[in-house]
């Protein structure tokens, strides 16, 4: 294998693929990056066996097609710190030689046969949509996904396609974000997958051009995404996702609308007096305003108010302010609406069109 590449392209590509490659793995071969030079392009492949990425660089001159399996981190770091405009990659026996002007390094390689098979994107039955639609929904839901594994498969994002709508759901059992977006007429069967958060992050990184039409393939055990230059495969999470639709209140007694940015600011203000162990802010609904009250036994208490338009009688509900602030960060309209039935039932925040965020309140026993 012998290839001449544009330094900038190669640097970017290696950095991207390296975000997938683990530094330590029980299967050492995957600590490497697989370089595949075909007639007209150089492919970089990385995997941690959960997420796989195949990236194609076309601004190259292939002098000799072939493959090399070289240490991921070092290859990427060395190329990153080069200064020349072109870089030559050459496999010489069992070494990978990287040259750029007067700079050169030789790295040990591993037999490419030891590398796991990384699938190729199968376009049959795949779905076509705009990259920006996909990344937007990930951004609106991923923050609410669980970090730990629990009884339900909540450490990933439920991704659904049904009736011409792409919907994503993230929840950690205490709050839940649901966002959806119509996509171009799709007559196929409903599709469903729970995609691990890490896989979603890699997909989002690859979908850098929001206007690009990309292909999505819902496989039986993985989700595949294909762009002009990349293919990503994320192994799916098996297990039951909780019945999320059942916890979204459809009718509510109390409803209030306020300026989203102002609410976030006042929440941050009041939560300054709460401690990290007991994050709780009481939200009071009055006819024309929202009152906020935060207190902790060790640091004191704080109150604030903001103008609002409320429906229903006066009411109070207590939330972890961090949950609300995280949701408000993604609020796409100027106004936010909060609805709920009682102080012990879920609060529903409407953060935009086709975007709701459900937060369970904090209750104090006794």
């Amino acid at each position, binding site marked *: 294998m012998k290839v001449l590449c544009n330094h900038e392209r190669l640097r970017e590509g290696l950095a991207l693929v390296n975000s997938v490659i683990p530094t330590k793995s029980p299967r050492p071969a995957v600590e490497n990056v697989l370089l595949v030079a075909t007639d007209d392009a150089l492919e970089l492949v990385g995997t941690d066996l959960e997420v796989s990425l195949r990236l194609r660089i076309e601004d190259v001159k292939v002098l000799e097609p072939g493959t090399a399996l070289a240490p991921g981190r070092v290859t990427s770091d060395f190329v990153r710190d080069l200064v020349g405009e072109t870089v030559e990659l050459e496999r010489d026996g069992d070494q990978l030689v990287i040259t750029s002007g007067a700079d050169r390094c030789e790295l040990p390689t591993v037999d490419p046969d030891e590398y796991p098979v990384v699938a190729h994107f199968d376009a049959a039955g795949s779905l076509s949509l705009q990259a920006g639609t996909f990344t937007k929904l990930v951004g609106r839901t991923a923050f609410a996904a669980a970090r730990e594994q*629990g009884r339900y498969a909540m450490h990933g994002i439920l991704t659904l396609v049904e009736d011409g709508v792409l919907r994503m759901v993230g929840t950690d*059992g205490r709050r839940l974000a649901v966002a959806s977006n119509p996509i171009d007429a799709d007559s196929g069967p409903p599709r469903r997958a729970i995609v691990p958060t890490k896989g979603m992050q890699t997909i989002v990184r690859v979908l850098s051009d929001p206007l690009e039409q990309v292909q999505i393939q819902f496989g039986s055990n993985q989700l595949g995404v294909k762009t002009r230059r990349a293919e990503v495969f994320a192994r799916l999470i098996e297990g039951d996702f909780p019945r999320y639709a059942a916890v979204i209140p459809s009718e509510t007694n109390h409803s209030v609308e306020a300026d989203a940015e102002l609410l976030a600011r006042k929440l941050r203000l009041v939560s300054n007096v709460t401690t990290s*162990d007991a994050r709780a802010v009481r939200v009071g609904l009055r006819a024309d305003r929202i009152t906020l009250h935060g207190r902790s036994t060790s640091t004191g208490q704080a109150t604030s108010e903001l103008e609002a338009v409320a429906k229903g009688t006066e009411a109070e509900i207590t939330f972890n302010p961090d949950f609300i602030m995280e949701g408000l960060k993604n609020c796409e309209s100027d106004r936010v609406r909060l609805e709920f039935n009682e102080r012990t039932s879920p609060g529903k925040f409407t953060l935009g069109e086709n975007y709701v965020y459900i937060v*369970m309140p904090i209750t104090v*026993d006794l």
Partner: protein
Amino acid sequence: MDAFYASVELRERPELAGRPVCVGGAAAGRGVIAAASYAARAFGVRSAMPTARAQALCPDLVLLPPNFDLYTAVSREIMAIFRRYTPLVEPLSLDEAFLDVRGTERLFGDAVAVGRAIKSDVLRETGLVASVGVAPSKFLAKLASDLDKPDGFRVVFAEEVRALLDPLPVSKIFGVGERTAKRLESLGVHTIGQLASLSRADVQRRFGASGLWIHDLAHGIDERRVSTNRVEKSHGKERTFEQDVVDREDLRRRLYGFAEEVAFELRDRGLRGRTVTLKARYPDFHTITRSRTLDHATNLGPRIFAVARELFERIPFGPLRLLGISVSHLEDVRGPAQGQLFEGAAAPAPVADGRLERAQAGLDRLRKKYGGPQVQMGTSLSTPERR
């Protein structure tokens, strides 16, 4: 109190006066010394030392099994004496406490007079010797109480703080353990005076937030108040095995037992915790701890075990001398509770884990009635492989 457990034992058994006496576990069971009388200390015997080692140092050592009920009773008497002089008593352990005596001058005289009075009350009423340190802050008071042990009485006035601290080794600072002391030594810092002369920014850069803390203490600055409602910070259970244990399955089973015990104690005290810490000691005494903080606080044994086990599987393989679990980041179960969207959604959620909670409550009742080991989850009897 000086050599508290040993002194209490000596008081109970006057015939042992003058002999080297220790309270601790038997060497055959790989016990350690909990307290050593001053006669024993003359032989180099120290608390936390393996009993076998202590007996090698001092062949005539009188080893007594600990009698915690007795020590607790004596501790209560001593604390009661402290409370005659001020309500602001912060116990540090059974035999140590901080007292804030500001504002009691008209009743009892200044702090020095109070210190003397307490020392003589304790001796007269319990027959035990206390060491007293009187100083403007907690750190200095504790330091002062240790300086003239045994039977010490030391007053540190604000103007002599520098002269007192400067020549002391850095290890005297609360928060400077073996590791930090070594790192300081590698910087050429041996004494508190040398540490105090480093720039604050430099110490922070090297040691982070704890650097600021030790730097403050090196200057004698300690803003901590004496707090009577000292809340428990952690609950744990650890054990030194009679013989090193190699079998992983056996270790896991013991770990399960510890998790159950810690969980039971937490429930008994109305607490739950968020951080689980695993402690393991290898035969060469190399000790490691690994922690993980959960999203939700828990006081359920299986949950604590699941986390401890994950940590356990990641520590280096090998025979272990000691294994333990502790749970910290404690909170009151009656405190505010984060609601759950789905029944049983997150295993650690204390409110939603209905079935396990109810089973646990039943087990707790049995446990209280018939004692611990008789009532156990099936998991701890067979293999805890399945979750």
